[in-house]
């Protein structure tokens, strides 16, 4: 299946959104890849304020890194990337420029 590491900047994503984000990451992944949403692992890593930079400035960008258990065809990957990215923006209210999503082969 897939496991996610979500690297977020302190104070940018409210803690109470994490359950929704986790369940949506799992639901979307299970629909795209097959299998059970319960098998999708999600962990969060909070970058303290002043420890994350983008373009040399304080960052507000979240990085959602998915690691697959098996290689994935590119067409499915692109569809999954779009869905994950759209969901993240919708739930968090961040702009499309504030989220990076990857789905990596093992």
């Amino acid at each position: 299946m897939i496991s996610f590491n979500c690297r977020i900047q302190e104070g940018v994503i409210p803690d109470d959104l994490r359950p929704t984000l986790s369940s949506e990451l799992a639901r979307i992944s299970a629909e795209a890849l097959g299998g059970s949403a319960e098998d999708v692992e999600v962990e969060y890593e909070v970058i303290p304020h002043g420890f994350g930079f983008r373009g040399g400035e304080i960052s507000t960008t979240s990085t959602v890194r998915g690691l697959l258990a098996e290689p994935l065809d590119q067409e499915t990957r692109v569809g999954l990337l779009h869905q994950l990215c759209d969901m993240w923006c919708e739930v968090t209210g961040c702009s499309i420029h504030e989220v990076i999503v990857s789905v990596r082969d093992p």
Partner: protein
Amino acid sequence: MPSYQWIVPRDSVPFEKRQQVAVACTDIHCGSTGAPRSFVHVTFHEYDGESERSTPYFLDAGNRAGRPEEVKKKLMSDLLAAFTRITGVSPDAVSGRLSEGPGRWSMEAGMVLPEAGEEGPEWYTAEAAAD
């Protein structure tokens, strides 16, 4: 992408130095690759106790694959040199590694990343909008 994560002992690099290092990393990466500044992500991760790496200060770099070996070597060399210059840490105490992956595995600014060296003008235009 690119992602530059500096792994450092706790409380060893103050905010002002972290910001200077972040700006230097951005300058060096953009000067080497032509990427827009908003493309470059720099984070600092502090640890307690003994380092699990070969040196106390370590750069864990992640880039898109496809650049020539000499470009990658100079990039890493310049990044490590900038860190030692800004922080005053001995060069012997700093090392790093560069991991690479296909651009097509990632999406940024709503677009699947092109492979290194295959960026069209539309990519830079969209990325610049993030600034």
